[in-house]
């Protein structure tokens, strides 16, 4: 982008860094409005059960029966989601990291085409993929199976992982790999013992997001399962709210539990998100 050429932050000192707590207060107000639904989710999850009781504005007497019900009814689904998400992370990184390396370092013919395909894949509506996968999965016996969902859910993560890891590897000094190759290291060894360790931050970033994508997946869970045998938690929540809800505290408790990965990512992965996006610029 043309703007980047002029992006050198030469004069950060132009604006005096006065402590402007008024703006901070305003920002906290915006944040409070935006995060009210998240507060409400936590608040409602701590209310005692009951159809007629109105949720009070504050959880003054926190009640954990919602969580007991949630773990009792959705605990297995949470484990299913966890297994699928971890599987998707492993598969996505195993496929994306070598591809990103090839795209960043080798001038293979067709590399541009692969990147183009990755970008185009983002336009394809999930329902189109699900529609065709359902019939194929039915023939292959992959419906209602964890491997089936791992494969399908990785469709959310693999294109993203390739792009983010490639962007990072683009910024890595080529001389490091060339030096290793001169020392007689084969491609696989150079990749395994030099490129991957150096790309650690981008791998973590890609892995965290891939986890979150698979964890959040609803479409494939909805379309590629027909029985209760394999049921991710997103589908469990959907079934809660599909019928008339008379126990919101357990629904909200399940929602809180299903939000844990997102919250952890937001708090713990800040550094990796920054590493992933600025990694290419450091060099």
């Amino acid at each position: 982008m043309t703007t980047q050429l002029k992006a050198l932050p030469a004069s950060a000192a132009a604006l005096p860094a006065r402590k402007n707590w008024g703006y901070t207060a305003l920002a906290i107000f915006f944040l409070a409005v935006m995060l009210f639904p998240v507060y409400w989710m936590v608040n409602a999850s701590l209310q005692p059960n009951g159809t007629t009781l109105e949720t009070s504005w504050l959880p003054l007497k926190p009640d954990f029966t919602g969580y007991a019900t949630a773990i009792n009814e959705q605990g297995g689904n949470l484990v299913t989601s966890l297994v699928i998400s971890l599987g998707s992370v492993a598969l996505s990184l195993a496929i994306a990291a070598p591809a990103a390396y090839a795209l960043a370092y080798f001038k293979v013919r067709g590399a541009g085409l692969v990147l183009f395909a990755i970008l185009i894949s983002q336009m394809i509506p999930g329902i189109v993929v699900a529609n065709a996968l359902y019939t194929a999965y039915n023939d292959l016996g992959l419906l209602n199976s964890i491997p089936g969902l791992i494969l399908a859910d990785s469709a959310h993560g693999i294109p993203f992982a390739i792009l983010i890891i490639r962007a990072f590897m683009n910024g890595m000094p080529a001389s490091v790999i060339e030096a290793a190759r001169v020392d007689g290291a084969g491609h696989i060894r150079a990749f395994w013992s030099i490129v991957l360790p150096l790309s650690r931050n981008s791998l973590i970033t890609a892995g965290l997001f891939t986890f979150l994508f698979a964890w959040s997946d609803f479409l494939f869970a909805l379309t590629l399962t027909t029985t209760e045998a394999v049921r991710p938690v997103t589908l469990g929540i959907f079934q809660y709210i599909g019928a008339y809800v008379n126990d919101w505290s357990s629904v909200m408790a399940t929602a809180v539990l299903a939000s844990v990965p997102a919250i952890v990512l937001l708090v713990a992965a800040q550094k990796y998100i920054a590493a992933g996006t600025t990694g290419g610029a450091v060099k």
Partner: protein
Amino acid sequence: MSLTTDVSQAAAGTAAGKGSRKHGRGSGSAMQVPRRRPRHRRERIFQWLFLVPAVVYMALFFGYPVAKNVVMSFQDYTTATFFTGEAPWVGLANYVTVLSSSLFSTSLLNTALFTVGSILGQFVIGLALAVFFRRKFPLNGILRSLLLLPWLLPLIVSSAVWRWILDKDSGALNRFLGDLGIIDTGIPWLTSTSLALIAVVGVNIWIGIPFNLTILYGGLQEIPDELYEAGSLDGATGWRAFWHITWPMLRPVVSVVLVLGVVYTLKVLDIILGLTNGGPANSTQTIATQSYALSFHEFKFGEGAALGNVLVIISLVFAVLYLRASRRAVDE
């Protein structure tokens, strides 16, 4: 959640642009290889092996579904097909059925309203917040990153939470409005045919604000302060500075954000299924949700595929715009 991919692409674009200095060096080393022919060929095969798993995956999980969907859309593909294995060719019959149904015009209009309403709201609020966060104040960074939360939550979680907030009888919104004395009886946000679409758009705006804020903030950060200093000497401050400096400088980022937003909003399914399931009386039915209903509720996979393809074509129009907007950012 797929929205997250946008940032990666924008980020990938940014990093690729900055990392492009490497290209010169890389091609230099590649030049030496062709001298040794046999080694060169083996080398090339080796290099391709790194890419093969990704190519196979993309072909199976994106290429195959698109091709299969095109084939299915010309077939009478129903539950019976799964037992008999037969899906008779029906020509354009699925398209005729789908496009001439009265529901199609409803879904098309809803899709348009949902997309335009969502994008407009997300963009305006996102831009306003991005401009606001450009100011320097304590805790700016941490507050801005906490704003990302709505965007990282699973969409079905957000749908469930908003279902409860928008509940007619005991939802938080109606109680809040009631406490303020604005309303006497609960507003049926999700159960009235005239309000449901507005409510769904509102929720989708809430989900999309963080994405718009993040990308637009990134774009604003790249505008050099000198421009504003020079502008202020010429009397361009406040709104004038925004119109004459910020907006023109931000335009490339704006086009990427808007086109990506449209492409992603067109295919939204989770939020609508979670909030209203397309109801009441189809008032929130979009092309995506209708395609889902045709395939997975009525088991008319051929018709579902046909409608899905209509959605693909609409997306492709915007995809062309998207590629034009991001071509420079991504590679070469």
